[in-house]
């Protein structure tokens, strides 16, 4: 089952391509992290999927419905939390929850009360008087109280202190068993503990999209000690990223790791290889490698 499917989704602002031919599938029940540097097109992609923005090309399907036709009935099953969302600052937390309640047939009042308590939200405080972190919590609480089938979060952790982040992650994880989650972020440490799948965007394009397991398997830091000093050859494989060579030491990131093939290829290129070591990479390092490499696979 697919919760979100994008086919060639594009969005152009005047002459700027913010999103170029996005093809993406997010399976139901997964926690999908959409990563990428600032300006990569993550927010545009999400807003287009949510029918906040109109695509200029391609299409997206959200919970089996064309994103351009998402309406009130669909949003009863979708939660959306964004870092730069304009909230009704004049409402108190309690009134905000009470106001939203009649919009959702599946609103669970007990859960709402529990979430307010769990997030330590002051009920009588106006939203405009809350800190950014508390506001995000209020937004998340109001989105989890009706147990949505799909929870979409756009940069929910950026600029938040660790305690608030932890609270948010806790809240997200607690609803993960019944909700498909799409979260865009460049806060990699949190994503690593959260996501089951990950996609990486750069300059409006999706560079890869796969499960965390597969990603961890695919990326390796390779350290090679050569028999004798050598330069980087012309036919350097495209999936070997960021090569660095000092006289006889070679280091690069293999983005399509296969131990046997890497061995064989190194021997073909350099002849004598004294030692090779492969090190698994944390998501942060993979992200940085991709970002610095310019998103090339």
């Amino acid at each position, binding site marked *: 089952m697919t919760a979100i499917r994008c086919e060639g989704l594009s969005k152009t602002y005047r002459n700027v391509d913010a999103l170029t031919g996005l093809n993406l599938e997010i399976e139901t029940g997964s926690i999908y992290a959409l990563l990428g540097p600032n300006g990569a097109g993550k927010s545009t992609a999400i807003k287009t999927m949510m029918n906040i*923005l109109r695509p200029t090309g391609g299409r997206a399907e959200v919970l089996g419905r064309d994103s351009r036709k998402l309406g*009130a009935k669909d949003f009863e099953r979708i939660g959306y939390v964004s870092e730069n969302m304009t909230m009704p600052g004049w409402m108190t937390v309690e009134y905000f929850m009470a*106001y939203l309640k009649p919009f959702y047939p599946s609103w669970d009042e007990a859960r709402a009360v529990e979430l307010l308590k769990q997030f330590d939200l002051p009920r009588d405080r106006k939203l405009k008087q809350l800190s950014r972190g508390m506001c995000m919590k209020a937004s998340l609480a109001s989105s989890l109280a009706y147990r949505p089938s799909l929870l979409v979060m756009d940069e929910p952790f950026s600029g938040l202190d660790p305690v608030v982040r932890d609270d948010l992650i806790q809240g997200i994880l607690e609803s993960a068993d019944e909700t498909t989650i799409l979260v865009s972020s460049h806060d990699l440490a949190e994503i690593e503990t959260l996501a089951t799948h990950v996609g990486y965007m750069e300059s409006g394009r999706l560079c890869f999209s796969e499960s965390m397991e597969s990603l961890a398997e695919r990326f390796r830091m390779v350290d090679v000690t050569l028999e004798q000093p050598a330069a980087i050859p012309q036919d350097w494989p495209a999936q070997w990223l960021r090569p660095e060579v000092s006289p006889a030491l070679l280091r690069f990131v293999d983005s399509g790791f296969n131990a046997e093939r890497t061995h064989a290829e190194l021997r073909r290129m350099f002849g004598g290889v004294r030692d090779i070591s492969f090190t698994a990479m944390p998501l942060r390092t993979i992200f940085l490698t991709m970002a610095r490499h310019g998103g090339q696979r």
Partner: protein
Amino acid sequence: MKQTIHIFRKDLRFLLLEIAGFLLLVLVFAMTGETDYVSEAVEIAALYLVVRMIHAEAIPGDRQYWLTRPYRPMSLLGAKLLFIAAIVCLPLGMAQAAMAARMGFPLAGEIPGLLWSQVLFFFAAALPVAALAAVTEGLVPFVSAVLVLTITAVFGATTFHHTPPPVEWIGDSIFGAATICISATVLLWQYRDRRTLFSRLCGTIAYSAALAFYLFAPASLALNAQTWFSKNPGLASAVRVSVKPDPNRATAWSDTKTARVPVPLTVGGISEGMEVRSDSLSISFAWPDRKWSPALNSGTTPHEPVNGEAALDALVHMSAGLYRAERTSPLTVRGFVYLTLFGEPERRMIPLKLGPMNAQDGLQCFSGGFLGGDYMLCRSLFRWPGRLVHAKDTVADFGDSTISYSPFPAELNLNPLQIRWAESVHADEATIVTKRPLAHFRCDFEQGGLRLTDFEPPPPPGLGPAPGVHIK
């Protein structure tokens, strides 16, 4: 409907303070609404309330929390319209009704005006403001847009719009209807599809086209339309217009730059008990070697007909050079005049010194003093009646040239009170006479064998031009 009420109640809570302030102003308006600045303050407060309420769920932009909540577009729009009707129009209507009762107007007779006034305010004022608010993100862009539109419209209207007052309602109604249609369409588009750029573009183009039509459509369109829909064309069949130079009426006068030539027209064939008024007049002068047409306002017909004939005085301004050059040349005067016949008089005698007394056609009349003089004042609610209004046996004339033939019972004006005054009346009582318009029609005329000298006063025998006539 449930969601509509839910959003409406939220808006009430959101704007509680503003609503309280507005209602307080409305209360002051109900008690002292005769003064223009109070009604203007109420208008601004009402429209501010509409803008704030629309901006509570701003349509343009991609960051509003409500965009991804299960709002049904038509419920949201319904809530906004309900707010305008219940929180803005209803209190205004009640205030106007209270004003009418306080001033002693018979309420039953004012109900059509009262209702129409609310309909007009809702559709022709609040709806366009709501539409403009729906394509702007905040108060500052909204005010900027209002300023641009207002300045354009006011400049255009004062510079290019020259429709005679009696038929202005036709252009106003067409422009108003177009504005309402544009506003309703923009609101529907915005709430249903949120296509702000498209709405702005289409709205601007359509509004500009409507404004251009309003400003530049020739006045003759409205006059012809009024004539076309006239109910009693037969009444006009005997009416004739002719040019009759008459030294006893008005005579030509010239200085070094300008010559003023009074063209005395006579409207004949008017049935007994009827009066005629000119709505618009066009005259052209033709000499053997040239033609010339002056810009004219409508001529005036200030007197009741005598023996079926009424005088229609037109005043033509021409350059002194042209006057001198053609003064003695043979002249043919051609033209046409749009006339309205008034009749079926109603009379009611009222005491003047006891304060405002109800007369016919929704009028209240009384005598009052201001600016050091005594005046007779008549007032009405929602609009001045489309009638000739006289006080019998006095010189009182209540702005006959600015009455409107509009069939609607109210004008777009929050302050419902219309007051006109006439010259000093020293009587204790007066008979108010009103005559209703019976037929609108156009009369063409042509008179040859004239000379400009025919319009000059006759010189005293052997002394050259009469004193006061300076033909240089």
